[in-house]
């Protein structure tokens, strides 16, 4: 009797452990679908347009050689809203891209503190993260809506 009860508890613990592992799995990031999901799920106040690939390195102040591919949607310069997905050529390049992205957001926060406090708050609640070889920057006035989408990938 004691043996059977012990086996049942062991099986139950095993099932519980496997269930926990399945719940922590993230989606594989696909830049275009990610940006499209953000544009549809989150509410951006500015009219975002995709920047030319030549402008992206200049805007972020990075070496274009570190970028394998990039999708950047920017506003009219009236707001700080922005979406950027960089695919770095390697992990080191991804780290450099991440640092450049954080520097830009920090500069923006400093700029908007005196010019537009609301935009500064938006920048502080934005997302700058690295997942694999991808670096993601999401600055959106609809912070909650943007979080719901980014949490699926990060």
């Amino acid at each position, binding site marked *: 009797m004691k043996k059977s009860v012990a086996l049942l508890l062991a099986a139950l613990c095993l099932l519980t452990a496997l269930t926990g592992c399945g719940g922590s799995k993230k989606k594989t990031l696909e830049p275009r679908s990610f940006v499209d999901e953000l544009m549809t799920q989150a509410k951006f106040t500015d009219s975002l347009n995709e920047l030319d690939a030549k402008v992206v390195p200049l805007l972020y102040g990075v070496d274009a050689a570190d970028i394998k591919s990039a999708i950047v949607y920017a506003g*009219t*310069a009236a707001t700080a809203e922005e979406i950027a997905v960089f695919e770095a050529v390697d992990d080191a390049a991804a780290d450099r891209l991440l640092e450049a992205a954080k520097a830009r957001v920090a500069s923006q926060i400093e700029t908007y503190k005196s010019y*537009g406090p609301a935009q500064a708050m938006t920048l502080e609640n934005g997302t700058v993260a690295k997942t694999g070889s991808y670096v993601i920057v999401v600055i959106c006035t609809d912070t909650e809506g943007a979080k719901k989408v980014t949490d699926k990938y990060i």
Partner: protein
Amino acid sequence: MDQDQYNSLSGGASRPPRPQGSEVEDTPLFTEVPYIPTRRTPNSGRPDVSFSGRPASSGASSRPRPAASGGRTAADYAESYGSYTRPTQSRPARSNSSSRPAQPRVTPVYTEISWDQLRPDTDYSSLGRTARPAMTVPGQEEYDPRTAPRYFGGFEQEMDDLFYQPAEQPAAWQNAYQQPGRNREQPFQSYQTNRPYPPYQQSRQTTTPREIRQNAVARQRSGRMETQQPRQKKSILSLFSADRSSELARQRRSAASERQAPAKRPETAPNRNAVRTVPAGNLNRRVVTPPPTPPGAKAKPTGRRSHRGVSPALLMGIFVTVALVIVLLTKVTGRNGGSSVNTRPAQTSAVVTQAPQITPEAVTEATPEATPTPSPTPVPSPTPDGPKARLQGDLVVPAAWGPAVPERVHAVYDSRFERSIMIGNSMVEGFFMWSGMASSMDFVYGTGATVTNVLGTMDLAKITLNASDYYTDIYLMFGLNEVGTDVNSFVQSYKKLVDFIREHQTKANIYIVSVTPVTKEVDQDPNEVQKMDRIRTFNAALKEFCVDYNCWYLDIYSMLLDGNGYLSADYAYAGDGKHFEKSGYVAWANFMKTHYVDADLITE
């Protein structure tokens, strides 16, 4: 008579070849014909013949002359009408282009029948003469058949003019007379009658068209053909007879009386059994004429008369048809009239078609989206004409030169801005991102940057670290964040910035970009500081500043305005009414590509 004799007597004129062995062998070549003064022979190239009416005594005349037609000779005519000397003909000089060869002078034995006389249809116009040879009439000078009276009697001319002048058709008469083919077809007849035949015959019409119609209908229905004489040609002399004149007068009187009393019957004794001849199809048919209406009684319309008149139904039909046509025309005209108002050039279209203004911004504004990518974009249209500008090479020189950047006919490539830098506020950031020129020139921008704090807060290392002659064009754009401040301090701050830049970049042309306009919503929002009047004040101060400090004023303000004087909705970002959409930045870039100055162009 052999062939040589035949040719010698023929005078060398072109004749058909003499047949060999024919009976013509002994036929005399020349016959004497009576002189008919009404039929003049044109000059055929032979010497003038002085006609005396008597045969000339010559050796050749020993041969008995055959009698002329009718058995009368010229001598007989001379005896009948008395001695008459034929008038000499003054022959004009023949054209050298005539194909007729020179003919030897031959003294004829008898009166010669001209070969041309036998061919009255000869076209003398080929001889280079358009008029017939003048003829000298005894007692008169040069005879002009068109102006002078008739050769044989002015009475005919007078009668002709009196009765047969077609006064109602002068143009047709004249046109027919002037047809060149008329004279060529009947030269002799026109020579005699002074008019070509067809219009002359046309002028003989003495009855009105109404009378003709009435007579035709009467002939057709009553069959009284005996009263109608067949139309035939009459001689000219017969037309001028007294009988003819009286007959014409009688016809006119009868026609007038018929018009006055068309239903009136002659008050003669009734002939109930009057037999009339009928046309060939109705031969042997007795036609009984209806009895005439007794005098004093009301004229009863006969069946023929009723048929001849217009029935009321026909009149009603015509009236209804005309009314319908009028109504339709009225409707169509009304419809067209409405559209004609639209076809008139509207005031707006006139504005569109008028000469473009000199302000180059208007040209660029018209094609803001012509080149989304600012790579080689020869977009702007040249507007060199007008009282305010003139074209000097590629440069559109405004009359009031001032500090404004002149317009260029051709746009430049992006590569021209390799040695250019733009320093400014968030507008410059937007220009950097969306104009497509981010990689073509350098940018230093800061969101919320002002000209006051630019020297202390912005990184101007590109200005200071590069060589003093590195940049050729430096664009400065501030003001939208300062329009709520004092304009004088704004200008003084600008002066400090320009001095700083010129200290490090000595060869560059400095462009002061105008303060951009805002939308109407922003202008009317009390919470906003960017008002249009303040913006205009700042721009005016910037113009004066450019004059004083030898800078160029890049007037994109005017380029971005709409018809109401605000930032155009085509360019404005609706979120704030101050920044631009991508289209606005592209238009700005295109404006810069057509508004620039050369490195050695100095403001006066």
